[in-house]
Every structure is written in C-alpha cells, then in structure tokens.
C-alpha cells in the first residue's frame, strides 16, 4: 500500500500508481519481434542503426494494471468536496456542480481502456535521450516524399490532443487534401509528461528539450523535417529554430511570442505606447483584462512552487482535474455538453487520466519552474525571436488566450513565411479543430517541401 513508501526513490512505474514495486518495464511490451511478426511492418519501420547501444529505439505499448484503474475509481468515489463557489460563474475557478458531474462520469461510465486501445493501435516507441526516456508516437505516411513533422504538446495537454490530426496529416487524400501535402508525424511526450520519464535533475528547460527533439529526428533518420507546437510546443519549436537544428527546414507555431518590448512594458505597468493601430490596441486591452482576471495565476504558481502544487494534484483526482481545467484554454469548454464538439468529455478525461496514471502532475509543473527566469512565453524578446532566421509559420486561432496581430508577428520573426488568422478554434487548436489545423499545416509548409 503506498503511503509511506516514497514512490519516487526510483523511476516510477508508468501507469502503476499503487504498486511502487512494479518495474516500469513490466508495463512495456518489449516483444518487438512479436509485433513485427503480426505483419504490421509498415507501422514499425526499420530505423537507422543507433549511434550507441543506449540510443536504441524500443517499441512501446501502454498496459495499465487494472488495480491502478480501480484505485482511481475508488478515490473518485471518496472525494471530499468543498462547498459551492460564492460567485455565480466560473470566475473563482471550476464550478462545484460541473466538476462533480464530470467526476461522477469519470468514476463510472468513463473507460480508460478505450484511450489505451487508441494509443496502442498507433506505433509507439521509447528512446533514451540525454538521460531521459522519451516516449513518442511515430506514424509514417504511405505517400512518398511525405514531410516529417515533430509536433509538441503543452500543459495541461498531452499526446491525446494530437490523436485526431494523425490521419489528416499522414493520409491527406482521405480528408480533402492532396498526396503532395502528406506528412510523417512524430509526436513525443515532454520529459515529465505522459509516458516519458521524469528528469531527476534540473535543467530540462525548453532549450534542452529542443536539442533532444533534434536528436530524436536524427535517430529516426530524418535529414529534412519541420517542427510544430502550441503552448509549450511553441517555445520548444522556436528553440529548435533558434538552434538551427540540423535538418530543420522551418517551424509552425500557434501561440507565437510576438509581444513587442514597448507593449511588454505596458503590460508590466508602464504607459500604453502611442501609435497603436485599432487591432493592436484591442489586443493590448485583451491581455490586460486577461491578467486582471487572474488567468495567469496558475502559471505563476507552477513557476514558483511546482512541488507544492503537486501534492493535491497527485493525491486527489478532483484536485488534478480542477487544476487542469483552470487553464484558460478550457474557459469555453462545455464539459462535453455538445457530443459533436471536440474535445469531448472522454477526450478531456483521457488527457487527465494520462496525467493521473503516469503520476506526472508534479513533474509536468516543473517545466514552468525550469522556464522561470525566461518569463513570458508570448513576449518576443523573452523568447529571443530575433535570433531565428529559419522560416516561421503562424496560425492564429481566434479563441486562444492571445491573438497576436500580424504587425507584431512580422516584427518578431524576420522570416515569416505564413501568417493566417482562422475563424474558429482556441488554445487546444489541434484538439478542437483537427481538420482545420491539419489544413493549416499543409498550407504553411507547402513552400518548404
């Protein structure tokens, strides 16, 4: 029974929250030969020989023990609730009635095995980079000359966000696209997230993750590829561009660092700069209101005290869910009221359950701490955008937390090859609008092929 045994004196077993003794490898099927023999050879391509034995790419399969799922359900059923919020809306945080309803479903009809099966139907792998085991999905298109793209999730997201874009990107003709616009997709989990291992030391900031991603693409045998990212995926993809990773042709980002210095100063309490266009002024006002509304308190808290935040989010499913749902990207989410709207209730619970089963709420928060000194992810200077000379493509989704005007984007990125503001979608763009998102990537990268 866990409790007095520190789960973390060793690399913990993935998906085995309640059995610290269980070795992580027992979760993983290393029966590569068995998988190949099943005739799914096209899903598991031969990789170049590793440069060193430790660089090997190992097939991965998620197998969560049933007692981990039972334990989750038991804890949900025993949730001890606070009283109802005193405000009439979600301005104080996730509303009690909504969260209780979600937890009721989560502990009842919700089925993790469906998500597990979806993941296991995809080619998943593990490889050790810079001391950390990195989990990734790798799907090659059947079309020749497909452009490889590495797609990076953020917080509180995961690879679950990207599942619906895999087929549109690798199989475009089934989605109204052209074969010439096909992609191979590589979808890793950040260190400390999902099935990737948790770093035991410090230093895993976006720059280091970017170098690991470059190494990953090299190991996969790609010598020309592109990178895509929203949320943390944006600074990481941008770091790859800044580092001019070998083989990287360009990046696409959907939460770009574009706030110019004089506006950053205004946001910090200085005067609003004169000469702003109407559009620019609207964005400045929106950012100020967002700050006043407390939309970034979670960011500050995770940056300062990730370990403190982690205890409640690791021990309480309601605590974890509420913390995830505090992200402003969920501000318009209707808790699955419309079953046609993505992400569905199941989608979001798949994501939250992944955090729960892998015990990564705390390790995920550490990325904010690592980013600490660098500060805001939307300020151009903080993200050193002036150092990027590789092509940059941007799509602005209107309901995201920040909608940069094109004028700022052009100032921030000297090689802006694509800028497009679409008419729908928000922070979790790929999750909410998979077809539109995929169409954007096709258009954005067409000129780089």
């Amino acid at each position, binding site marked *: 029974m*866990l409790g007095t045994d520190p789960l973390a004196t060793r690399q913990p077993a993935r998906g085995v929250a309640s059995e610290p003794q269980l070795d992580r490898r027992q979760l993983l099927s290393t029966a590569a030969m068995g998988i190949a023999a099943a005739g799914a050879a096209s899903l598991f391509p031969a990789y170049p020989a590793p440069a060193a034995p430790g660089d090997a790419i190992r097939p991965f399969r998620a197998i969560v023990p049933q007692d981990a799922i039972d334990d989750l359900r038991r804890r949900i059923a025993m949730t001890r609730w606070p009283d109802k919020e005193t405000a009439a809306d979600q301005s104080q945080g996730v509303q009690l009635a909504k969260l209780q309803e979600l937890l009721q479903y989560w502990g009842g009809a919700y089925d993790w095995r469906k998500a597990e099966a979806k993941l296991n139907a995809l080619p998943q792998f593990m490889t050790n980079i810079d001391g950390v085991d990195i989990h990734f999905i790798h799907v090659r298109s059947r079309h020749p000359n497909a452009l490889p793209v590495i797609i990076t999730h953020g917080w509180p997201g995961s690879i679950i966000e990207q599942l619906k874009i895999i087929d549109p990107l690798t199989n475009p003709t089934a989605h109204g696209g052209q074969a010439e616009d096909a992609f191979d997709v590589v979808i890793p989990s950040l260190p400390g997230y999902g099935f990737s291992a948790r770093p035991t030391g410090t230093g895993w900031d976006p720059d280091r993750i970017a170098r690991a991603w470059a190494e990953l693409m090299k190991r996969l045998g790609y010598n020309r590829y592109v990178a895509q990212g929203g949320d943390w995926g944006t600074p990481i993809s941008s770091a790859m561009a800044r580092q001019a990773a070998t083989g990287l042709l360009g990046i696409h980002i959907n939460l770009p660092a574009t706030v110019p210095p004089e506006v950053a100063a205004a946001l910090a309490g200085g005067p609003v700069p004169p000469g702003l266009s109407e559009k620019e002024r609207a964005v400045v006002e929106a950012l100020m209101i967002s700050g006043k509304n407390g939309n970034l308190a979670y960011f500050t808290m995770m940056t300062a005290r990730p370990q*403190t935040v982690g205890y*409640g989010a690791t021990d309480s499913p309601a605590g974890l869910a509420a913390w995830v749902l505090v992200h402003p990207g969920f501000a318009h989410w209707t808790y699955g009221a419309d079953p046609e709207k993505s992400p569905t209730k199941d989608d979001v619970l798949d994501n939250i359950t992944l955090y729960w089963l892998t015990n990564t709420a705390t390790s995920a928060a550490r990325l904010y701490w690592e980013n600490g000194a660098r500060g805001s992810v939307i300020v151009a200077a903080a993200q050193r955008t002036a150092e990027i000379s590789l092509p940059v493509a941007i799509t602005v989704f209107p309901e995201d937390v920040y909608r940069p005007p094109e004028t700022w984007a052009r100032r921030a990125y000297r090689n802006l090859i694509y800028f497009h503001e679409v008419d729908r979608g928000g922070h979790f763009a790929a999750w909410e609008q998979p077809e539109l998102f995929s169409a954007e990537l096709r258009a954005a990268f067409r000129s780089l092929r």
Partner: protein
Amino acid sequence: MPANSQTRRQVLATGAALAASSLVGEQMSRAAEGSNAIRPFHIDIPAEALVDLRRRISATRWPAREPVTDESQGVQLATMQQLARYWATDYDWRKVEARLNALPQFTTEIDGLDIHFIHVRSNHDNALPLIVTHGWPGSIVEQLKIIDPLANPTAHGASASDAFHLVIPSLPGYGFSGKPTTTGWGAERTANAWVVLMKRLGYTRFASQGGDLGAGVCTAMAKQAPPELLGIHTNFPGTIPTDVARALAAGDPPPPGLLADEKHAYEQLQVLFSKRRAYAQMMGTRPQTLYGLEDSPVGLAAWLFDHGDGYGQPAASITSAVLGRAVNGHSAGDLTRDDVLDDFTLYWLTSTAVSAARFYWELHFSLYNAADVSIPAAVSVFPGENYQAPRSWTERAYKKLIYFNHVAEGGHYAAWEQPKLFSAELRAAFRSLR
C-alpha cells in the same frame, strides 16, 4: 457521489449551556434572544472523522521527489512524508480539542453568518476589551498561548492594570465560523461584524489586534472608526508609500533618497513580490480550483505549510517547528509541530480550505500598502516578518501612531512563536488607551 457528510452542525455538539465559570461574566448569562443569541459552543469531532483523516493520510499517493536539494520548488517530499507519518499515527487532535473546550466558546449570527469566537473575561474589572483576529493559514489556534498572559497578567509577572478581556473570533469561512454562500464577505464586512460582535457582548469601548489578514480587518475597522473602537495594534502593518509601491510594481531598483531601513524594506518587498506571492495570487483569483486541498490531507498540509517559500519568511518558523530544528536561522520559538498540526487539522476537520481561500478573492486592497489609518494605532515590528516596516513609513501610514517597537525575536506568526514577547507588546501598546 457521496456529499461531504461532515457538515459543520454534525461535528458540533450544540449541547446545553456551559456551566457558568468565573471567566464568563454576568453579561453572558443575559444572552440576547432570537437571532442575536449568543450560543455556547462545544467541539466534538466524531471519532469517525479522525479515523477517516488518518486513513486518507496513510493512503496518500505521492508525487516524485523534487529534483532540487532544497525548497526552491516547494515543500520537499521527505518533509511532507515525515510530517504525514506523525500526523497519521502519534498526533492527537483530542489534545487541542480539549484545550479549546476548556475555554468559553460561542457562536452568534451576525449579518446572516454564524461567527464562532472564544471569549475570555479577565478577573480584573478594568481590563481592556480586545478583539484579536488571525490570518491565513492561521486560526484561533495561534492565539491560545496569549490568552492567559493577557487575561491574567499577574500570573505572568505583569501588572493587573494591563489586563485584557479577550474576544478571539474565526474569520468568515474559517474554523468553526460559517462559510459565506454569497460574495461580499471581505475585510470591510468582517470589520463591521466584529464591531457588532463587541457591542453585542456589551462592550462600549474596545481595541482591535490583527496580523496577516487580521491586520486587514483592523485597517477596515479603523476606517469605519466606530466610536467604541479606541485603537488598533498590528504586527503586520501596511506601510508602503504610494510612490514606493509604484516603483516596486514597475520592478525598479530602490528609488534614490531612501533611508537605510527603507531601502532594506524595499529590497525585502522586492523579493516578497517577485518570489513569494504565488499562493496569494492563486487564492485571490481562483480559490475554487483548490479541490485537492479538501480531498487530500497532505495536499492541504503542503499548501498551508508552504505559504510562499518554506525557508524564507513567512513560513520559516513553521518549517523549523516541523523539522525540530532552526532552519536558515529561523527559530520556531514556542511553536511546536503539534501546534502546526492542530492548525492544519482544524482546516481539515472544518473543510475550510477553499472557503478560507475565498477571503483572498474578496480582498480588494493590498495589506502592504500604506493603511492610511487615522485612529490611534500601535505597531510591533518582529524581525522575522516578511518585511520590517520602517518607522518613517509607519508614521505616514498610521497617522496617530501611539506605539512603535522593534521586538527582539519572532516572525510572521508572532503570537504563536513568541507569546510572552507578543503579550508584553500588547500591554505596552495599549497602556495609553486605557
């Protein structure tokens, strides 16, 4: 979905009135009728609640160890596990329950909300009535050690003429006070309720004391300036002048021309605002996110324990008390590990983690900025507080400063850590108002 079955009423035994004790004066036996009634209160936590708490602590699902060797990412895993082991085994809630039940406790409905308070009358007739307000993550547990020194000074080497009658309430949404169901219960409404409370108890002249959020309530009371309020004392003064506050907000270096102690305070405040206020921002904007603190005892304890920066102020003494050694030179003083768990357990048993956080959401002024108080005010500066208020700033913020003193020892939880020194401060501070 099982509702939280531990409603406050179920944990209270609202039994028969306590037998009149020498500590409870005649005014009490003439308790008002109807909705102004002052009802005796007795704590009786069901055994089942304590068993549940222990069970949950023992079943804690732990995060991985922090990748740093200090508290720079939050309360360390080893510290929490050590505390949890004790909390789930040898720690005994019944001890503090008995201590509280040995004191006269009451509830009364004010402005639609039940307010719980301890009321101890001194045997000395000319005692000065004083209402003492706790903060976060504190509670009435912080004040237990100052009750006898203040109400019964001659037993502590002090003078009968410095005695106090004490009223120690719990803030709305804290301890055994009710939880507001609508918005609006901030410092001002609380201050108003405190004045009503003192008058309902029959006091026509009284003083007010507060630290942390309690200091905000004192400021609000001072601004309301009811004629009955003689003055306030705070160990958490709001003193930052407007121009200095602006410079701090802009991230500027210390403005030129500051005196040495003003510059030191400025530097302390820079660190405080840049590194140690994340929890307050979170609680002040999204208190209803903290579901984990109601559902996980360790989650709750870690959040309360951390209070910004474990090694740094203001949580330093709590860290020292829990670890049993002075950490980074911050002595725990009289504060013990049991004291700390008494406080945390009170939050747990009353399910007030989230309701307590809402007070921050309702707080619309900075506790650090110049309080702008015009009634008599006394200030004690404790060396371990998050910043040491310079006299120059204090005099501008508290226009009738009747007492200002730098105390030798003690930090943010002044009464809890240094009850003797704290009590001496209050005697000296209020002497001129009697």
